[in-house]
């Protein structure tokens, strides 16, 4: 019945054998090579950790493995239990016992625990769901993952830590042999994280193989038998348990040579024009949880300031809460622009006070994808191309063409639909929109996510030009080299707190990583 209780002899037989081998995996997205010749070999019965920076390609690799990206959309081969596998969807990989638990939990909030566990895998007899059997089996699985909850409880009524356990129970229900966990502890408390890691160790004793994706190095050190480091879509090295040290992992993770990827700039930094004081933000759905815990941020005229941090550190939440309170509840703190206290409580007021925010997710929050460039560029500042509510068509066209030229948007004309542009050009449209709003301070959230190297260079050039014009720029990025390459000063944010601040020329990836790790240790103790 259970997929994990292998007999002792079976365990001995399979121990140490290679259960999974991914050979020369290459995966390309339009304009971006996400993975290039990645090799990964996992032994039966081990916990294999995969570490790497955000965007290094860890999740992409796991999506290839689980069939989310079906066979044929990537190059290379997957060998599992000695056979080559060609998965065409997540069902194929689950059939052979590979189950992935994604970072964002895939549970239906208003269904019960039992219903979620057997979703798509219903306990049926002659096509009719046998609820008694489902409840019995659910209870059994919950016991196995150490969760004491009634199987009829709705998912929405239990905490994130318990939800994570339900996800694992769901995986167990599918007769899992290879369990993949993508950042399972990213949104868990210390205590829940520890419990989860103990559970993984327990599964290992029972003979199950796991792949753990994490960038929390202390967790990796605690449970992993071997660690594979991925950087820039390539495998850097795989080290055994005794070789694992924090230093070695960090060096492997960040040790790339700095190429000439960033345009040079001579900073000319003036007085402080943007200041956020003692900023505190609470989670919109769980108001008791603080997402930003009283932080101070300053940006000078002509200065490019970076905010580094891992996923979930609260960087986007900070930016959006400052920009018109578009995130969070119970926000407190002060925003100062040009040495005066400014009201940024609505987007309109924030823009009027000279603040702009280009979002992390340009498709969801940045662009009207079904409309053309011209309309997207002017939408945040329509009054300046209109008189008494009537748009001056010619003035608008002139503006759109001017910004298309300025930011070098490659399109047939300003009448091209933005949904058909490449990521880099879409990003330039978003930038144009905010440049046209003529702000004094720009917050750029992941300005180069998912765009190719050439376009990145152009975006950096635009940022430099804006700084030269005397604007203050706050860049949020998960790519540390990018922050090091373009910023005059860098804040390190971790779990809603500033855990480090360093001048750009003194900063290094090691220093940033250390600040994060130190911050975590302090939080844990």
């Amino acid at each position, binding site marked *: 019945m259970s997929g994990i209780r292998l007999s002792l002899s079976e365990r001995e037989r399979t121990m140490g054998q290679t259960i999974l081998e991914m050979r020369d995996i290459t995966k390309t997205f339009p304009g971006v090579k996400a993975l290039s010749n990645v090799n990964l070999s996992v032994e039966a019965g081990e916990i294999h950790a995969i570490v790497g920076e955000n965007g290094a390609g860890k999740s992409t690799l796991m999506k290839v493995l689980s069939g989310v990206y079906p066979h044929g959309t990537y190059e290379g081969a997957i060998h599992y239990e000695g056979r080559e596998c060609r998965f065409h969807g997540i069902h194929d990989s689950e059939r052979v016992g590979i189950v992935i638990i994604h970072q964002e939990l895939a549970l239906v909030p208003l269904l019960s625990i039992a219903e979620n566990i057997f979703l798509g895998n219903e306990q049926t007899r002659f096509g009719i769901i046998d609820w008694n059997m489902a409840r019995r089996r659910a209870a059994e699985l919950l016991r196995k993952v150490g969760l004491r909850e009634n199987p009829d409880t709705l998912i929405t009524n239990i905490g994130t830590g318990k939800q994570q356990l339900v996800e694992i129970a769901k995986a167990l229900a599918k007769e899992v042999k290879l369990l993949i966990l993508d950042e399972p502890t990213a949104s868990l408390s210390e205590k829940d994280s520890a419990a989860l890691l103990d559970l993984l160790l327990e599964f290992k004793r029972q003979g199950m193989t796991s792949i753990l994706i994490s960038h929390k190095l202390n967790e990796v050190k605690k449970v992993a038998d071997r660690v594979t480091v991925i950087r820039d879509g390539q495998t850097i090295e795989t080290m055994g348990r005794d070789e694992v040290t924090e230093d070695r992992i960090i060096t492997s993770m960040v040790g790339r040579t700095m190429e000439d990827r960033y345009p040079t700039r001579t900073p000319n930094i003036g007085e402080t024009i943007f200041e956020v004081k003692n900023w505190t933000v609470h989670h919109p759905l769980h108001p008791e949880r603080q997402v930003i815990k009283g932080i101070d941020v300053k940006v000078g005229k002509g200065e490019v300031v970076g905010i580094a941090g891992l996923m979930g550190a609260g960087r986007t939440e900070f930016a959006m809460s400052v920009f018109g309170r578009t995130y969070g509840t119970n926000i407190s703190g002060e925003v100062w622009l040009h040495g005066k206290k400014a009201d940024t409580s609505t987007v309109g007021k924030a823009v009027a006070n000279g603040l702009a925010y280009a979002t992390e997710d340009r498709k969801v929050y940045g*662009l009207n994808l079904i*409309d053309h460039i011209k309309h997207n560029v002017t939408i945040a500042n*329509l009054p300046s191309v209109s008189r008494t509510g009537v748009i001056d068509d010619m003035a608008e*066209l002139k503006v759109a063409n001017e910004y298309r030229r300025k930011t070098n948007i490659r399109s047939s004309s300003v*009448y091209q639909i933005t949904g058909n542009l490449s990521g880099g050009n879409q990003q330039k449209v978003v930038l144009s929109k905010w440049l046209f709003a003529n702000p004094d301070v720009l917050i750029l959230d992941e300005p180069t996510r998912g765009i190719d190297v050439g376009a990145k260079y152009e975006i950096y050039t635009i940022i430099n030009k804006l700084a030269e014009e005397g604007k203050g720029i706050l860049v949020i990025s998960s790519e540390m080299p990018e922050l090091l390459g373009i910023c005059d000063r860098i804040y390190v944010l971790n779990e809603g707190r500033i855990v480090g601040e360093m001048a750009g020329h003194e900063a290094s990836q090691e220093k940033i990583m250390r600040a994060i790790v130190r911050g975590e240790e302090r939080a844990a103790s």
Partner: protein
Amino acid sequence: MSTDTAGTTTNAAKATARDAMKENLRQYGLVLALMAIMGFFGVMTNGILFLPVNLTNVVLQNSYIVVMALGMLLVIVAGHIDLSVGSVAGFVGAVAAVLMVDYGFHPLLAAICCIAVGGVIGGAQGYFIAYMKIPSFIVTLAGMLVFKGLLLWLLGGRSVGPFPTGFQMLSAGFIPDVIGRWTIIEPQLNASGAAIPNTGLSLHTTTLLIGVLIVAAMLYFALQSRRSRESHGYEAEPFALFVAKNLVIAGIIMFLMYKFASYRGLPNVLIVMGILIALFVFITKRMTFGRRIFAMGGNEKAAKLSGIHTERLTFLVFVNMGMLAALAGLIYAARLNQATPKAGAGMELDVIAAVFVGGASAMGGVGEVAGAVIGAFIMGVMNNGMGIMGINIDWQQVIKGLVLLGAVAFDLYNKKKT
């Protein structure tokens, strides 16, 4: 990275013309579809469809649908729907009847009161949709039931009428012929000396004159806008295309004006419609208010982060819809010359169908005023044509349903191809 600037400019100009063509193509497609449908029914009804009296009828029969389609277009572009417009129109018609017939209000005062009532109704529904975030489908479904009920309660089962003559003129009246009729062929007389209907030809001169003025104004503005583009260094559409397009439109306008002129001239309600259509084209094409509705329908989150007050905008869109539904209710009541408990029933479906046939997207963000108006007339001409042909009401429904489905499917197919 450094592109030749001159090269880019010409490329952009060419592409502009091509894009303009593409953008207009689906609108031309709709016009062609309407012309094809009119041609088809013209033949099938032995020309009855094109008789001046019948064309005038088509306008009168569809005027209230067109008026509501203007508001519904904004609602649908904003990403919502309004199922209550039929009931609201019926209810407001009853309010008008009670005010004028029972309480003796002056028609103009009553009309102003009624439109205000419509605005309040739209505002109430808009409040729940915009600020309480209740889906518009649910709010307006509730509104549909509520106002249908209030209509029955207000009339208490009776039909109220007739209206004062001044009010009837809204739907039954024609513009006065200040110049006087221009008789070209004397009508034949029968034995007793009276004119035999449908013989002879005399024209409503004022109508013809208005037609000429409209065409002249249209050509003037088209030329003006073209010159303005050129003077700013942007090439407009090719001159031949420009001329051909405007000649065809001018031809259609003069043809229709001739038809109206040879009956009783322009109906008053057509003047009201024309002004409203022009106003809404202007709002959607040229005003920040309209542009923001499209931005909100295309991506509400992005619109919000661009500083657009999406709640207020949604609210105003529903206020506007309520006022137009009220106006439509007045037109309908004036046409029947009484308020009936059944007024407005099912009208919302014709209105919504007109907007979708006219190319609006159910996802929001896409739609044209001209499309919605043409959509309304496509459905209207089919109603009229099938009625003349004597096709049963049951099959009329089936055919209209299939046309709606076919139009939207064809549109989606076209979009996928490009």
